[in-house]
């Protein structure tokens, strides 16, 4: 039985999993979906018990019935042959999505994570589900109304933070740019132009913070890292100054761990990276859960066996229902 890995070619975390699966003698079929259709072939038939057939590239072939689990790790978009017009390319992409995803997603195997469940985990929905699961979340507004932001700030009577709802990185002006979490001062509230352009997220700025925590949950296993900021920039957003960070192993309160597990069950996810602020009096406040979060750097810093936990999960291939 084979583990199917759908991921970009260049990603060291995936390589670690591939190497450990190989060491354990577990067959792997790894591909990026950019290989479809030029060097990845799907040839499937609907049989009495579901879809069967093969997925093949120039190096190996996989019978769909031999798949024990799928690791869906942000594969990139299909690449079509040159010469297609834009309408043809759109059509081909839609057909590829329906065909390839329709067949693969119908396989009754473990997915880490099932693509549509991952896609469902939108930040506002996460916050609502987290609250229902007993997790504390910051007071939050989502709005394209500048005055609504001012009213929200006045009601809270506390500083606000704004952060992106979707991607942290934008490609423009010939380069990559990123938006870190910003604390809003009064002057910012006076000038909110651009809020009306799209949806924006505003939250109570959590202060004081004892530290932040990144908790990686793999199946039932929980790896919790305390992230300690060593600069003002990192206290606002730890991503802005990695050099100043130090790390420690921490233990979330039981109700937080139970809340994270309930959250993952609610979304049908078996892997997730949760971000928390932890206050000096020990309150854990969840910001978000990233269902395809990075974990390798914490594995290196703290010795967490996250790769092994993922390999255990994929090798077992047990679907929890």
């Amino acid at each position, binding site marked *: 039985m084979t583990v199917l890995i759908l991921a970009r070619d260049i990603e060291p975390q995936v390589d670690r999993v591939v190497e450990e699966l190989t060491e354990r003698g577990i067959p792997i079929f790894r591909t990026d979906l950019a290989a479809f259709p030029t060097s990845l072939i799907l040839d499937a038939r609907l049989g009495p018990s579901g879809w069967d057939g093969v997925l093949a590239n120039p190096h190996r072939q996989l019978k769909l019935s031999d798949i024990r689990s799928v690791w869906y790790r942000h594969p990139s978009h299909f690449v079509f042959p040159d010469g297609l017009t834009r309408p043809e390319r759109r059509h081909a992409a839609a057909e590829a999505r329906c065909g390839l995803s329709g067949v693969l997603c119908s396989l009754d195997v473990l997915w880490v994570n099932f693509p549509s469940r991952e896609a469902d985990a939108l930040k506002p929905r996460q916050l609502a589900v987290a609250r229902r699961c007993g997790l504390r979340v910051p007071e939050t507004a989502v709005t394209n109304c500048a005055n609504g932001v001012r009213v929200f700030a006045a009601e809270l009577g506390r500083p606000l933070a704004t952060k992106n709802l979707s991607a942290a990185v934008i490609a*423009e002006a010939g380069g990559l740019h990123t938006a870190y979490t910003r604390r809003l001062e009064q002057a910012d509230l006076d000038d909110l132009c651009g809020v009306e352009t799209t949806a924006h997220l505003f939250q109570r700025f959590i202060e004081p913070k004892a530290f932040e925590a990144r908790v990686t949950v793999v199946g039932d296993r929980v790896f919790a890292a305390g992230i300690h900021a060593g600069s003002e920039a990192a206290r606002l957003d730890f991503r802005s100054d990695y050099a100043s960070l130090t790390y420690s192993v921490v233990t979330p309160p039981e109700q937080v761990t139970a809340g994270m597990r309930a959250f993952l069950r609610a979304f049908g996810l078996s892997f997730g990276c949760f971000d928390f602020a932890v206050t000096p009096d020990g309150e854990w406040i969840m910001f978000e859960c990233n269902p395809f979060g990075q974990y390798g750097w914490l594995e290196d810093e703290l010795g967490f066996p996250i790769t092994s936990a993922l390999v255990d999960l994929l090798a077992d291939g047990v679907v929890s229902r």
Partner: protein
Amino acid sequence: MSSDECSLWRDPLFSPGDGFPLGPPLEFWADCADPPSTIGVRPYSLHGVVPVPTGSYPDSVTYDYDADRQITTVRCTDGSSVTLAKHTKPGPTPASTSGYTDGDPKNPPPEEMGQPDYQAD
């Protein structure tokens, strides 16, 4: 992909919600030439964005995907070759001070690309 062609792709930011979300083509990230719009139109969420550092990895290394082992190897200028997992610490995010740590400096790690849901226009 040329800049002109790049501008034909629907949006440099990805909106989630599709049943089979996909990331953009890898070369997409380096090629969008569209400048920021004027203040007043530009989304507030993009005020104050900062360039992602180009990273601490030398351009001189070459990444090769080893289809037999199904991992990436890195060829250095001295002719040596190591696996990407040994060469590169898997990084969390673009970092402003410690360099880019996710293998290919041109490609942000998945976490920073947001919910993958990229559809070609």
